[in-house]
Structures are given as C-alpha cells and as structure tokens.
C-alpha cells in the first residue's frame, strides 16, 4: 500500500497555521518524491512544499488561500487504484478554512484524522460518499497512545524519517483526551477536569507536569496570587487614545480563571421567568418579625437552590475527565462584586441550613469578602454558584461557569411586569434567571427540570421555611 498523507508542515518554531498559496500540481497528476506540489505562505516566508511520496495526487483537500493548522491533512498521494475514501473525506474538502486563522491550538476536525491510521483492510469496500464537510467517523482511537495527531509531516518512504526536526507544541485534536495514567490519577484525586489541561507531552499528551501546572494555576486563581499580571499579547498598542491600567491581582486571576472555563467548558443556557410576588411578600413579613436577621432575595434564592439541588443531583455535579462526580454536599458560591473584580465565597452545606441560618452566615461571609478577610477554605469547594445582579436594572444575563462546578445561576432584577392572571391583565413581580450548564455534565432537559423545580419553590415559598 502506498498512501502518502500530505500535511501542513511545521516550517518554523512559531508556525501554527500555514496559508496554501497555490497548488502547482492538480488532482490526477503523477508526482514523485521531491516534486514541488504547492506553495505555502508562513509567518516568515513563502515556501515550496515538496512531495515526500510518489504516486498520483489523488485528492486536494484545501483550496488556494486556505489557512490550515500545522499537521492538518491537505492532500493525499496514492496509487491510482488505492482506496483513499476514508482519508479523503477525513478533512474538510476544498475552500478556505479561515476559521482556523490565529486560533492557537487550532483544533481543526481534520487534525485528528490526519494522524489516524490509513485505511487498512477494514476500509477495503468502497467508502460511501459522505458530505464533504462532515468530519470522518474515524475509528475510535485507543484511549491513549496511537499516532500523534498529525504533528509531523508524513514520513518520507526512503531515508529515515528523522529528516524533519521534531515538531514544537503539537496540535491538539478535539474529542479525544490523551493523558498518561499518572496524569489521570493525579487529576482525579485533585478533582481537576483534564479537559481544562493543555498537554505538553508527545503529541499533546497530558502528562503529570501539565496537571501540576493546572493545579497550581487553579489555586493561584482562587487565592489571587503574587505573580505579576501579564499584559495579554493581543492587546492593541498603547497610544494617546488609550490609558493603560495595570491589572490588579484579582483582575488577572479572574482573567485566567474565566478563560479556563469558557474555552474548554461547553456552556449552554436555560432561562426561566419566576413569579416572585409571594416571595416578595414572604420576605416582607419575615423581615418584620422581631429579632429577625436581615434577609435578602439572594438568601431566598440560595435556600431555594439548595432545596432544588438536593432533588437534582445531576446539576450538583462536576466533569472529572472519564467520569462525572456528583457532590453529596451542597456548597453554594455567592458572587460578590468588588470595586476591582469579583470574589465568590462559598457557603457550605446549604441544604442543611435554615433560611435564617443562611441569611446570617451569608451576610457575614459577604461582609468579610468586601473587607478581604476571607479564609482560604471559604474561597473554594463550591458545587454550584449564584450570581445575582438584581440590584441593577438588569433583566437577565448569563454567567460563566466556575470550574469544576457544573452550573451557575444568573439572577436578574425583580421587575413589575404586565402579566395575565385568570385571563385578565395585572401587574406581577417577575424575576428572570438563567442557568449556565456544562454540557459535558448535563443536558438541556435536566437544566429545564431544575429550573422548573426552582420556579415552583420560589413561587410557593413557604417551603423555604421547612
């Protein structure tokens, strides 16, 4: 079998994508090793791409002008009668793929396929034509090991493959987690989701040092570290039109932590509107009781969430690499806005605390948060979070999940709204809440059921006193 996969070569250390300028050979042309088949533009220069194998240029997988991540399959050279169906459909065919430009790890679907084994006996039957854009249903790769996802040019057939220098940081393929057994064990014990870890081992494999680095970053983000904040490389140049404000430590920590969430955690959002008339009335009555602590709507919502989470263990859960971790305890993080950022202290065991207990403890927690007098255990360990912007004229918003939590509830203001009651227009107090969910942990219906339960609890709020 003589199939040569032509991949976007890594031509300089910093190169992450290359632009295909033009094909110098066309589909069906016969090529032999050393022929120049294309021109490629890199960040440094235009470079001629040589064929490493001989045969017929069977398939061109990207068109002129396309920017392609290093390691992605761009063409297939094979014998005229070789079945290349699986390979050829493995990459998005034709046309530029501008989406990959500048996206650092560039998880192009084809990157995984480029490293997949070439079709063997299993693919002997002519592969049915597939929609060109769909990623190939590549053979389920082994959990670990297997060829590196296209980080290197296809090996030349003759001289040893050593001619190419080893690739730098490799392309990470999506949908597949390559991690050493030790890295998995360390991550599992620390409750770290491996999907949030960037692998630096061969082929992007996650190794122990990567997990340790991620754990260090996680604790640094929580504890607002002493490390000097770095200005992101992408920031526009400073000039008279702009003012440079150095990042405070907390701002830098938030920046790191949020990227660690939004990039790897696939968010989805479920919104519901809750009638708060009775909750508003209940709060008024409770506040009027002699000796009652100050009671906020956040306290009511915390208690309601605790009740609902107890009934929906799938929401009170985290993604843990190769498993889901359901938390028996209900620890709720309450986002507290500060002048220069945001801290989410944790109110522990909310399911086992009365409303008044929650009110008293959260008030203390929030006061100490503003005074920056929190203790370390109060800063981590939440299983769910609530962010309430109801004190602002915010009708609704969505929040970013704080990993490894599986969900966060964003709470808008309680507004007077025209509502229909028994067929007649009336004024009701309405509050919109949006649940951000980690799709790896839960699905839409689960989020919807949780919100329905939360809504029912807040709309019949005497249960909060139980």
């Amino acid at each position, binding site marked *: 079998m003589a199939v040569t996969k032509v991949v976007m070569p890594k031509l300089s250390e910093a190169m992450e994508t290359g632009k295909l300028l033009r094909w110098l050979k066309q589909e069906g042309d016969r090529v032999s090793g050393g022929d120049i088949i294309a021109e490629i533009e890199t960040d440094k220069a235009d470079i001629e791409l040589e064929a490493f194998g001989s045969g017929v240029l069977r398939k061109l997988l990207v068109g002129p002008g396309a920017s392609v991540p290093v390691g992605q399959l761009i063409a297939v050279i094979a014998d005229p009668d070789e079945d290349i169906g699986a390979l050829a459909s493995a990459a998005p065919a034709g046309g530029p793929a501008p989406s990959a430009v500048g996206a650092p790890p560039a998880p192009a679907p084809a990157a995984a396929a480029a490293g997949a084994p070439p079709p063997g006996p299993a693919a002997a039957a002519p592969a049915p034509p597939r929609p060109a854009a769909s990623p190939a249903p590549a053979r389920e790769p082994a959990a670990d090991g297997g060829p590196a996802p296209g980080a290197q040019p296809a090996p030349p057939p003759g001289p040893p493959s050593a001619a190419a220098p*080893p690739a730098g940081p490799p392309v990470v393929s999506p949908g597949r987690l390559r991690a*050493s057994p030790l890295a998995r064990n360390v991550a599992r014990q620390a409750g770290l989701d491996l999907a949030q870890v960037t692998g630096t081992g061969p082929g992007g494999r996650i*190794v*122990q040092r990567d997990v340790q680095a991620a754990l260090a970053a996680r604790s640094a983000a929580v504890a607002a570290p002493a490390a000097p904040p770095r200005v992101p490389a992408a920031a526009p140049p400073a000039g008279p039109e702009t003012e440079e404000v150095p990042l405070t430590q907390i701002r830098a920590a938030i920046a790191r932590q949020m990227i660690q969430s939004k990039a790897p955690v696939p968010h989805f959002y479920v919104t519901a509107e809750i009638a708060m008339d009775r909750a508003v009335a209940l709060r008024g009555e409770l506040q009027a009781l002699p000796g009652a602590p100050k009671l906020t709507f956040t306290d009511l919502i915390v208690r309601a969430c605790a009740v609902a989470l107890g009934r929906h263990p799938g929401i009170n859960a985290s993604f843990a690499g190769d498993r889901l971790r359901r938390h028996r305890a209900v620890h709720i993080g309450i986002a507290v806005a500060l002048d220069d950022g945001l801290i989410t202290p944790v109110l522990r065991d909310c399911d086992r605390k009365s409303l008044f207990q929650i009110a008293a403890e959260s008030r203390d927690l929030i006061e100490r948060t503003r005074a920056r007098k929190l203790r370390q255990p109060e800063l981590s360990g939440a299983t769910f979070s609530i962010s309430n912007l109801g004190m602002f004229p915010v009708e609704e918003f969505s929040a970013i999940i704080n990993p490894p939590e599986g969900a966060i509830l964003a709470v808008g203001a309680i507004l007077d709204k025209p509502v229909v009651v028994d067929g007649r227009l009336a004024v009701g107090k309405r509050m919109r809440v949006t649940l951000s969910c980690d799709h790896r942990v839960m699905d839409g219906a689960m989020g919807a059921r949780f919100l329905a339960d939360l809504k029912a609890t807040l709309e019949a709020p005497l249960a909060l006193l139980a």
Partner: protein
Amino acid sequence: MPGERFDAVVVGSGPGGYVAAIRAAQLGRRVAVVEADRPGGICLNWGCIPTKALLRNAEVLQLFQRAGEFGVSLEGLRADYAVAHARSRQVAERMSRGVEYLFRKRQITLIPGRGTLLAPGAVRVAAADGSARTVEAAAVVLATGARPKSLPGVAIDGVRVISSDEALRLDRVPPSIVVIGAGAVGVEFADVFASYGTQVTVVEALPRLLPLEDEEISRHLARSFAKRKIDVRAGARVQSVRAGGDAVRVEIEHEGQAARLEAAMVLMAVGRGANTGDLGLEALGVTVARGFVQVSPRMETSVPGVYAIGDVAGPPLLAHKASAEGIVAAEALAGAAPGPLDYRAVPSCTYCHPQVASLGLTEAQARADGRAVRVGRYMFVANGKAQALGEPEGLVKIVAAGDTGEILGVHVIGAEATELIAELALGKTLEATVEEVGRTIHAHPTMAEAVMEAALDAMGEAIHL
C-alpha cells in the same frame, strides 16, 4: 590551515558527542567532531564496553565453576586472563570503528586533535603533530567527558596505584588488590578480579556497597560478595596509601579501629571529575559550578550557542544520560524545541554478579519526601524462569506513591537485572503507574514476570507470593 565553517562542531566523541553529531546531521546540519583519542570516548574504548566484555568473561568462568550443578564434568579448568583482556580490546576496537562508520555515513567530519573554545562559534583544534587549525560553527557542543579522580594526597602512578584506565590495560590480574570506592566502577572490577582468583578487598567510605542504591539492594550484594570471599570494608576512612616496590599499603580506619591492608595494587575508584580544564571556558564566561558546566534544560550553557552535554554537564555520569542530552542539544541547535529530560527516569546499571539496576528514588528517599509509599517486592527464588536458569538470587522492588500509584523508584538485583530495568524506564517515561505494569501481560516463563509481580505486590495483589 584556513578556518572551516560548519553548522555545529562537537568537542568529544563519546556517547554524548557522537550521538549529538549524528542527530544534528540527521536534522540536516553540517557537523564536525573533534576527538583527541579514538572515536567513542571513554564508554566505547575505556569504560562501559570493554568492562562488559571482561565481566562476561568473569560470568562464563563462574558458570564453568558451577558446571557440576548442571551435570557437566570439567577437569583442568584454566582461565587465561590475557585472552579475556585481548577480547575486551577487540570488542572496544570494533565498537569504535562502528562510530567511524556512522560518521562517514552521515558525512560528519572527524577532526583529530584537542579542541579549545576560542570564541562562541570558534574552536581551535591542536593536533598530535603540533599543527593547529580553527573550526568555525554556529553552535559548539562540549562533550569532553570526565576522568578518574583520586583521593587528596594519593597519586595514581599507573603501576601500583591505578585507575580504571590502567585496569583495562592489565593483561593479567594481580594476586591481590585493594579497591577504594564501592560505586559501579569499583564493584565491577572487584567482581572481575575476584572471578580470576585475585584476593580483593573493597574499601568504601559510605556505610555500604553501591551506596547510591537502595539499602536492601546493597545488603543483598554484600551477602553475595561475602560468599565469594570478597572482603568488604564499608564505612571505612582511608588514612594513607603508600606504594612500595612490590606492594601497596593502605591504612584505614574501620569501625573505630585502625587497620592496615596490603596488596599488590590499589584501584582508585572514588568517582570521576569533569574535563573542564583547557577548554577555554573561563575566558568565554561559560559558567562552571561545583566542577561541572552549568546548562539549561536545552543543554545550552551561559554563553548562547555553546552547549554542554554528558559528564562535563553534571551528574549522573552515565553514557545513556549523555546520549539523551546529546539528542536534546542537537535538536535545540537545529532550531527545534526538544522537551526537557526527565532525570528521574534515567536508569543506572552495575554489571557485577548479581547485576544491579535501578531508577528513581530509593525507598528511604521516597519516605523522606514525606509521602505515602507502597513498596512491592518479588524474589527471583519464586520465579520459574530464574529457577530453571539456576539464577534464583535477587529481587525486584518497586517503590510507588501510595495515592496515585506513580512509580517513584525501581530496584532490581539478580541475573539480567540490567535488561529488566528497560521495561520500567519505559513505564516511567510514559507515566504508567504500578497498575499498568501489573496488568501488562508478561510472557511466561520470563524473569520479567518478577517485574509484573512486584508491581502487583505494590497494589497488594501479587499472585505468586
């Protein structure tokens, strides 16, 4: 001669230098290697390879001495050390020619002579005939190795007081020898000489044989050496070494008492010092600390474009560590971004009988780290292949992290220990835990099954125990 220009010039052609040169050539670089002696360095010419040939002779001889166990009768068994020596030289010569062949194949220019750094990118080569030339290159790799050290005040005269260099040149064994130093070199020569009938005394300042190995391994080796009538004085301080006309006197202090040893020769095996002198390092500002050239994880010294690898760049002083560093340096100078070496995964082998091989932490070191440790052991006496071979001595010991099962250390003593360690070096590099090693299907019957059983034992699941 006018200056010649290369992409890289490697000073020294030992297992660090020649591997760096070949890797750089593979990556398309024009490479020159400067070597004052035969290609291959100490390892091929005066170290690893010839000593392994001698140790094989010792092993064959020991096996013949046990022939009766196998029902083979021998009469008039005679062992000719001169032949053993000649064989060791042949083996070394063959390996050195192999390096020359590899250089030719890769079009690497071998420049005979002694190299000195003139400037970053310029090496002066002084040939044996007194001529000199300057070789220029974008990158210079220092791979000058190390040489035997002695104790303060003790001169190696090469006759009565010798180092491993002279020991490998002996074509007959002395009637008696005091080996000072019980590291790999000392223990291996003690083994060879004792096999050929020399009365051997080993003196070690630290409290045990192979003091860097796990204590359990040292104890095991000490029992084995005692059976072979090798006199071991561990925890002994050498007070003086005096060479006379036909004998050497060594005064030691051992267990609080002064003792005098007398032998035909003394072998100094107290370690090796890096060859950093006469290289022009100071003039260029290359940082040297504690006797070794300081390098970054990509093996670059404090002067950009000047790399250092192998013994000259620091411990462990092992050929395979030098080769691995050579590959890192070659890839770095070729513009790639090689990953850093994991020095915890560098195996260490001693080819005495029984052989000793290890990597990572000893049990005591692991416990001193304060972490929960699980130790798995398997004795070869319970291994079918070892019994069939008549080699039931020794064990495999795995030190693992109690929480994650990480392989922290591996210690093997017994037949083929030095081959068995490769499996666990791979496991360590791939970050396998004891679970993966224990669940790997090992062929039966093999010595390697003991590795699997030791891993299972670390999990409390050994089958044949």
